């Protein structure tokens, strides 16, 4: 019996879909059987982030309405053994699936997979309620911005109210040079405020934009810092103790390069 993990944030655009794609791919790389579920009905995007948009036949609403069988609706990712996508419907809205149906779907998927990763839509309305309905664990993602942290705090409260205790935190888009300058909240600041355990930190990295452009998860990028960050996160999900990586590495290399080129 597998585990259902919902990835949520409250605020839009903080990296839920990117995190879902990379955690899914990362777990599959480590030999797990994984299905990533796009619960953002009407604003489907997990398919393009994963580069699987051309292979969609059925979607989550078709499965829930029994238009097709569960297995027919899943798209197998040929690059990652064991990774499957269940896409959202694009022409319906959030009311096309009820929390009860979502719970049943998650229970069915759990029978066949080690991990069911649900990509939640932004907001706290029905789409969010659907996304968390079948979850055993929650990951809250935020960025070091006042608005994102505020929304994360609200989401943590709502998860708690729904019985999803002890969610884990991912801090996305940290810019170490700004943190050093004192112009960006640091990891401790955010943990202090949100009072939940940290799962990982992802640096603000161009490699994520590039990998999303191509539809190839950055977790497979052996050079990018963000790829390393996602590999660490997947290991931690599996219970391995991985120390936080040194985000200064990037800056040091950059500084060295700058010194080499510009001589300062």
């Amino acid at each position, binding site marked *: 019996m597998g585990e259902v993990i919902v990835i949520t944030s409250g605020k839009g655009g903080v990296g839920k879909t990117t995190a879902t794609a990379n955690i899914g791919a990362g777990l599959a790389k480590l030999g797990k059987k994984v299905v990533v579920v796009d619960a953002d009905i009407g604003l489907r995007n997990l398919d393009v982030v994963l580069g699987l948009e051309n292979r969609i036949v059925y979607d989550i609403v078709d499965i829930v309405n029994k238009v097709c069988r569960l297995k027919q609706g899943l798209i197998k990712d040929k690059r990652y053994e064991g990774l499957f996508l269940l896409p959202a419907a694009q022409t319906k809205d959030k009311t096309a699936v009820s929390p009860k149906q979502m719970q049943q779907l998650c229970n069915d998927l759990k029978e066949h997979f080690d991990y069911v990763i649900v990509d939640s839509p932004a907001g706290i309305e029905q789409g969010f309620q659907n996304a968390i309905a079948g979850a055993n664990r929650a990951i809250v993602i935020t960025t070091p*911005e*006042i608005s994102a*942290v*505020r929304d994360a*705090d*609200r989401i943590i*409260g709502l998860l708690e109210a729904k019985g999803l205790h002890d969610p884990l935190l991912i801090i996305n888009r940290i810019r170490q040079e700004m*943190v050093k*300058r*004192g*112009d*960006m*909240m*640091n990891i401790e*600041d955010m943990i202090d*405020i949100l009072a939940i355990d940290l799962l990982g930190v992802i640096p603000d990295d161009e490699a994520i934009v590039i990998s999303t452009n191509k539809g190839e998860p950055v977790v497979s990028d052996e050079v990018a810092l963000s790829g390393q960050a996602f590999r660490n996160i997947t290991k931690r999900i599996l219970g391995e103790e991985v120390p936080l990586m040194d985000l200064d590495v990037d800056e040091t290399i950059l500084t060295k390069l700058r010194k080499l080129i510009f001589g300062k």
Partner: protein
Amino acid sequence: MAFLKSSNKNESNSKNVAKERLKLVLIHDRAHVSSRFLDMIKGDIIRVISDYVEIDEEGLDIKFTRTRRESDDTPVPALIANIPIIKMKDRMMD
């Protein structure tokens, strides 16, 4: 450049501003304190105090904030009311 660096060390760092603002806004969020709730407290305080003193209702300011507990310096939520008194009422002189 040296003076720029030293100025970054002080409390006016934008991240400290963000953190303080965030802490404050989260007290409201977490306590579900609405402005209507504050208005209700305000109304009741005015009603009670007005029995004894004449107050400047326009200047009355009441807010939810965070303060440090004296015993161990941990931050705790606090209700702070600033009530300007115009004069004591005669009945106090009885």
